[in-house]
């Protein structure tokens, strides 16, 4: 019989600890499937953040380390120098990357560090129980803004792809979403592109993946997918913000 589906070697044969409907699992799978398809599992080194995905190394079947909250890009910067022939990536949430770790990501991007960052933007602090993130939308509720985020009180949400695209350092920046099969297929293409550009030694690659957090958004998983479509994509438009120069 012909096999029509095989589980990727990139994911360890365990169930994840993520909540039902959370897209961390989807993000993990497309990254690991891509590494598997590219034959890079043995050469990849991943850096997990602090956040729900601090445990990513329990699921991703590659060499990995944890990193202090926000510092994954600094950690990856050094790993890449020790092992210039490896594929290095960081996997970071929006609190980790866009709040406490802003200096590290901006400087790694500006230096054009030759690793890839997968930025999971779920608009909230998942692990600590649903506090406001720098990416929480205006009007969106969180446990530290129960009536919804206001501009007066908390300022405006950060658009990280747009911000990093002001820098000359990055080679590739794209924003994708994980809320529908079509979007997930596109997201996987972006992940592959990021690894390919890294392999070619062209510099820093960044993929933002708009993600859901049904538990802390207070929505069912299907409703969370819709909420992402209706609220996040208009504010965080999908697309490519930087492509390597074709020579």
């Amino acid at each position, binding site marked *: 019989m012909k096999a029509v589906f095989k589980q990727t070697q990139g994911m360890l044969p365990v169930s994840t600890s993520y909540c039902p409907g959370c897209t961390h699992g989807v993000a993990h799978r497309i990254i690991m499937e891509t590494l598997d398809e590219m034959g890079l*599992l*043995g*050469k*990849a*080194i991943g*850096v997990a953040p602090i956040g729900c995905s*601090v*445990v990513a*190394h329990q699921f991703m*079947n*590659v*060499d*990995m*380390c*944890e*990193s*202090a909250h926000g*510092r994954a890009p*600094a*950690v*990856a*910067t*050094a*790993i890449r*120098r*020790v*092992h*210039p*022939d*490896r594929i290095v990536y960081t996997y970071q949430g929006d609190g980790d990357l866009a709040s406490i770790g802003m*200096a*590290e990501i*901006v*400087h790694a991007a500006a230096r054009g560090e030759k690793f890839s960052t997968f930025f999971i933007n779920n608009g909230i602090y998942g692990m600590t129980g649903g506090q406001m993130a720098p990416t929480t939308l205006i009007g969106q509720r969180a446990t530290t803004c129960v009536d919804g985020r206001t501009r007066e009180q908390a300022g405006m949400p950060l658009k990280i792809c747009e911000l990093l695209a002001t820098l000359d350092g990055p080679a590739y920046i794209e924003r994708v979403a994980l809320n529908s099969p079509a979007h997930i297929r596109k997201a996987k293409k972006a992940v592959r592109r990021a690894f390919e550009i890294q392999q070619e030694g062209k510099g820093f690659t960044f993929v933002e993946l708009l993600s859901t957090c049904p538990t802390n958004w207070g929505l069912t998983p299907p409703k969370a997918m819709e909420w992402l479509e209706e609220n996040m994509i208009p504010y965080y438009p999908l697309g490519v913000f930087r492509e390597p120069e074709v020579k």
Partner: protein
Amino acid sequence: MSEKVLMKGNEAFAEAVIRGGVRFYFGYPITPQSEIPEFMSRELPKWGGKFLQAESELGAINMAYGCGAAGGNGFISSSSPGIALMQEGMSFLCSAEVPVVLLNASRGGPGIGSIQPGQADYNQVTRGGGNGDYKMPVFAPASIQEAIDILYDAPALADQWRNPVMVLVDGLMGQMMEPVLMPEPKKPLESADIPTVKPWAISGSEKGTRSVVKSLRLQPEVLEEHVEHLFEKYGRMEKELVRVETENVENAEVVFVAFGTMARLVKEAMEILESQGVKAGMIRPISLWPYPYEAFDKIGKNCKAVISAELSMGQMVQDVKLGVEGRWPVRLIHRVGGMLPTSLDIVEKTRKILEEVR
């Protein structure tokens, strides 16, 4: 072995650690150690190494973590406020058992303080300024040659114990020049050899095993077991890593305890006291952790007072009291803010203390 050369402290520290096998340096400028990153940016590439100016000390310590986790021999240096900023990282490195060599050229504090020499980081470096139960060996040389010898051995020591190792100096030692002998360079660890030499390091799972370097242990019983494992290791360090120099403690009427720059000033004061007929001795801790408590057992019956001489409001004096165990009166001679006592100041204060305890 080569000829003695005259070298400035900071440059000698940097060269010694390179000769000891370091090939990666990450740092953020801060006085009084900025010659170290400057030297590294010029010299490290010539040795096949890599230099990077980090965006902050937070960046630097976490780069050091990534470097060590990946199996590289890394070095970072800073001064007091920068070291303070690195403390979360140090706790993380100790917990994840990642080796790195650190140098603190300590200055006057608290806060941004001054750029002059200070020893008020003693508690920070020996008690662990970061969170949780952890320890790291801290060595406090009193001459540039001694610093060279310690820094030369430090990368291997950090690797052996899979733990950060700190060298504590101050701005004075970084700026002064002394004739020194540089040891022969060690063979550095090549990236290609990391999977076999350090199979625990993250270098890609094609080596045959999957490596994970981590700190989080959410289950209490698992974390407890890990901390007990760390302390079993620290217990062995306490037996093997104590370094101390003692002088005349058996017959001395007054025994000084001092490290680093302060030990040099005390040494001058001891000569003056001897010429005045006062028998003085010194315990000079070279390892501040583990602390040489046993050295105090050598103090003889003529001792009238043990004096902790420090450039702080009295931090090491707590360890001195632990070593003395109530056997002799303990006093403190100190200056702070970047001020240094002269040897005559020390003599005068010592004579007063001796009158008072008689």
